[in-house]
């Protein structure tokens, strides 16, 4: 089951440049929440703060409170532990090039010391089925390298890899921006199914995509959260003028 994410007064910096200003947002459990906004508005930085990936960039830091279910993300737990409970899918598919398809999916568990081979086989199969890749790769699991798949397949492989560590939250940073419409469609269908088990936060440049997959949408502008509401409200009767300007294509 997914857990909700409570974000309070989140601020993030790259060196001296402030990238996020006082973000407060309640991400509901077992729903998809879309983050939209023009380039450079802090969308990616925002999701990277949720699993403390932000701080892996030199000179980057963040302050504020993020609660993931019962867990306080920024207090009392190590970043590595936090990231194990949160799956992340990146903009560009990034399978490990030296590993087979199987090893890619199993990587998160294996590298953290999981040794039970039978369980591993089950988890790899289940994750690949969840990400709708199983039928396309089941005959070459250990022979083919993850890098030999097509772009759309690689991205589904990366989703399977993220699901294999059994996270409660799945963060997706523009997961379809490098994909063709058919692969995009497959991944959107996938998001629909995954909502039953996970809480999903998806950054997207594509407003149609936001309205298709997400129940809630947050609009970011210049590092601030302008509006956060049910998706149909954002796209039909936004309460802020700037949101309306953006979704009607007046800027951005």
């Amino acid at each position: 089951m997914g857990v909700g994410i409570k974000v309070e007064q989140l601020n993030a910096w790259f060196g001296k440049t402030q990238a996020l200003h006082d973000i407060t947002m309640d991400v509901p459990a077992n729903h998809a929440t879309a983050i939209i906004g023009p380039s450079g508005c802090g969308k990616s930085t925002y999701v990277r703060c949720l699993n403390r990936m932000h701080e892996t960039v030199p000179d980057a830091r963040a302050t504020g409170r993020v609660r993931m279910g019962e867990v306080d993300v920024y207090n009392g737990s190590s970043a590595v532990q936090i990231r194990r409970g949160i799956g992340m899918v990146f903009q560009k598919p990034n399978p490990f090039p030296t590993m087979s398809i199987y090893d890619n999916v199993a990587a998160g568990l294996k590298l953290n010391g999981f040794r039970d081979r039978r369980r591993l086989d089950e988890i790899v199969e289940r994750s690949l089925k969840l990400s709708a890749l199983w039928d396309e790769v089941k005959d070459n699991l250990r022979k083919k390298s993850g890098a030999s798949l097509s772009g759309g397949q690689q991205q589904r492989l990366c989703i399977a890899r993220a699901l294999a560590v059994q996270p409660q939250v799945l963060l997706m940073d523009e997961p379809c921006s490098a994909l063709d419409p058919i692969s995009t469609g497959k991944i959107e269908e996938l998001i629909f199914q995954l909502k039953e088990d996970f809480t999903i936060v998806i950054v997207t440049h594509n407003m149609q995509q936001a309205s298709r997959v997400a129940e809630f949408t947050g609009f970011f502008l210049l590092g601030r959260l302008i509006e956060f509401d049910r998706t149909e409200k954002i796209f039909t009767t936004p309460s802020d003028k700037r949101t309306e300007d953006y979704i009607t294509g007046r800027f951005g």
Partner: protein
Amino acid sequence: MPNAHNSGFALAPVSLRRRGINALMSLSAGLAVVLVLLPLGAIFAYLVYKGIGSLNWAFLTQTPKPVGEPGGGMANAIAGSALILLIASSMGVPIGIGAGIYLAEYGRNRLGDLIRFTADVLNGVPSIVVGIVAYSIVVLSQGHFSALAGGVALAIMMIPTITRATEEMLLLVPQAIREAAYGLGVSRWRTTLSITLRTASSGVITGVMLAFARVAGETAPLLFTAFGNQYWNWKINQPTAALSLQVFTYAISPFDEWHRQAWAGALILIILIVLAVSAVRIAASRGMLKGTS
């Protein structure tokens, strides 16, 4: 086709001048390849021509005979070279790779710049000077020449090459690959060893083999460290023969028989280096070295 925009669908005819320049450039590039390969081929051919006559089973299995006695071989020198190179690699490879990892993953600071500069300078230090350093550190403190001292000298020469090669290969691994591992909750050191280093492994191995091949033929740093030995020796704290030393000693001697043996020794040295490098390459391509190095 880039031209299509300017000239509709018809391609502009390629001018004679352009074709001429193209041919000239292709020719000079090909010529450069020949010039690079020519010395290598010439050296090897000449070694075979001069050395093959003295190459026989006795040469590979016997120790040197005293002056005047015919026959004898360099078996102890082959073993000695192997021993010294083993010692050198067991010190130089881990230190070099470790330093390379530091530079690539943590070294964007003053200390990193200092290490980089030091490694580059060390790379340019004449090998005889490295020999003197190993002499003063190991030989003087032990009181006698040894395989260990030779190994230390060669290790010092391997380290900068391996360090810089490892650093460059690790920096070629895209940041996205590291982030994928961090995103799975893999700790930084595990990511470095199991993901980044593994992704870069073929390049790192090339760097290691380059360093290995370079020091395998070194003579100067062994002159007053390993020193040479006419007899078998397997102890790391005893003077030890080495192929390069033996070739050097025989080559400057006044005896024709020794000259012939020196040629054979040089031939064997090159063959063994090629064999060692190929063996590691084959092992690497079959995935036998792909574990966490």
